[in-house]
């Protein structure tokens, strides 16, 4: 279970970082979302992985640490709000700047201008 869980986090982080290094706002946004999924799973694992571990007293023999669950909940909410804001900002940037490149201008468009001169 630990191996599967760890490789999931690793794969999500890998995808997240790869997408974040792309040049357009949409992949960057997807990358950040992937990264926040990885983070959420990682926080969850910080309370140790247990099977059939209840977080409520008196319901089972084995208990799971409830704090990471609370932390993860907070992180999910905040991450969700931030992603929503970023989506709106990216749409606005597309409208204001005329393209969806993170730098506000397409690198090849610049090169073409120079050549045409």
């Amino acid at each position, binding site marked *: 279970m630990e191996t599967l869980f760890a490789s999931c986090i690793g794969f999500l982080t890998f995808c997240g970082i790869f997408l974040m290094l792309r040049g357009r706002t949409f992949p960057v946004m997807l990358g950040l979302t992937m990264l926040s999924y990885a983070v959420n799973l990682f926080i969850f*694992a*910080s309370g140790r992985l247990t099977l059939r571990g209840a977080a409520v007293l008196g319901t089972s023999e084995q208990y799971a640490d409830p704090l990471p669950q609370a*932390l993860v909940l907070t992180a999910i909410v905040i991450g969700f709000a931030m992603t929503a804001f970023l989506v709106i*900002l990216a749409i606005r940037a597309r409208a*204001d*700047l005329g393209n969806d490149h993170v730098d506000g201008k397409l690198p090849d468009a610049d090169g073409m201008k120079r050549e045409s001169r």
Partner: protein
Amino acid sequence: MWHLITAPILLPMLTALVIMLPPVHYSPMRRRWVSMISSAVQLVLVVILLLHVQQNGLLHYAIGNWQAPFGIILVADTLSMVLVCLTSFLALGAICYGSAGEDEKGSFFHPLFQFQVMGINGAFLTGDLFNLFVFFEVLLIASYALLIHAGGKNKTKAAVHYVVLNLTGSAIFLFSLAVLYGTLGTLNIVDMAQKVAVLPAEDLMLVKSGGLMLMIVFALKAAVLPLQFWLPATYSSASAPVAALFAVMTKIGIYALLRVYTTIFGADAGPLQGMAADWLLPAGLATIVLGAIGVISSHDFRKLVANLVLVSVGTLVAMVALHTELSAAAALYYTVHSTLVTAALFLIADLISNQRGKAADRLVSGRRVVQPILLGSLFMLAAMAVAGLPPLSGFIGKLMLLQAVTEPANRALLWAVILMCSLLVIVGLSRAGSTLFWRVSGGDASGDKAAPLQVFAVCWLLLASPLLVIFAGPLTELSQQAAAQLYDTDTAARAILGSAATEGDVP
């Protein structure tokens, strides 16, 4: 008195909510007055709280009465209260400036501003690392919206970079929190310090990697060298009152560095003691140099001021890296001075650019400003203060910094860098000033005069500089007391966790 510690967080939040409700929301004047009065009240309250903390020592408040290692706590010690006072003072000035008309260029200026103040105050007051993350996000989401206040291409572009970078920073912050929680089993700052002191050897590397990831996050917020590229564009494109408030945002990163690497990884941390210093000292020095180069190479005045922020950040980070009580005291005094003066400079830059027509704040010859004497003297005062020339607070701040460096090897390096870069800053500022005010070409002066409220706001912030000199004696004492309290982790642990818990933890 007990509950007053929540005031710096609750008051801005409630004010923001009141401003958004109908009777206040529909009238610009009412919005302004509520916002300004609330900030003034907040300033009075936090000064009372500071005096109380100074006399009676550290104050802590368990939210919902859940006791310390388990519940979230707020901690007011002298260091955090001084910074909260600084924020309130700055916020009042910035709100006054914004109320002169800037706030009507977009919607929800005042509520967002109050939410940001709430986040900043919360970040200074919290005693819990996860809560610090939450308050970081509160202030960040308000700052994202404030940054694009009044709209425009530059602002949108800067905001995209700023938001993406900070979201990445938040992800790294959460990774490091999870690592630290997984190994130490707590996120309460004081409790973490005790767990680090008795850390088993096999967890050492994990905690170290968690701690160093925290350093990356705080360095990103503070804009230290490899992570500073967002700052000049963001600060120079934000509207003036927002940029003025942002002047304190980098200081939150510095505060967090100071808090985490003194309390958690401080004197008792054994092999982990001072693990960030090796990275922070060279990074800080390089930031100073880069900032100074930025100052002399900026093409517009706002970018120049943003680079001045970098210089002050570099100086403060180098001081944090020195890791002595003396350097922490000097850093605190310098933080107060540099925040207020750079904020005033952002406002002055806006006044100048409003009066120069098309040339705006670019450093080219342009129309004469309408009020050369007023703006010139304000500029002169602020420039002298920020460069560290004698009669004003910059001089005393730099003197304290230089005196705080006691190690001979460090002394040669730091003195050389700080003093050389001060010279570059003076050169840059005098070039900027002479271009803005003396290189006049064509056209009569025409444009709006500065509104009285705007002039008041600038004077309010600049007034701090002479006051910091006149009351230098008590203020240096205060900052030394704050530093002593910061380094006295045992007393803090006993006050917050209770004596039983402290004894129980030692095996």
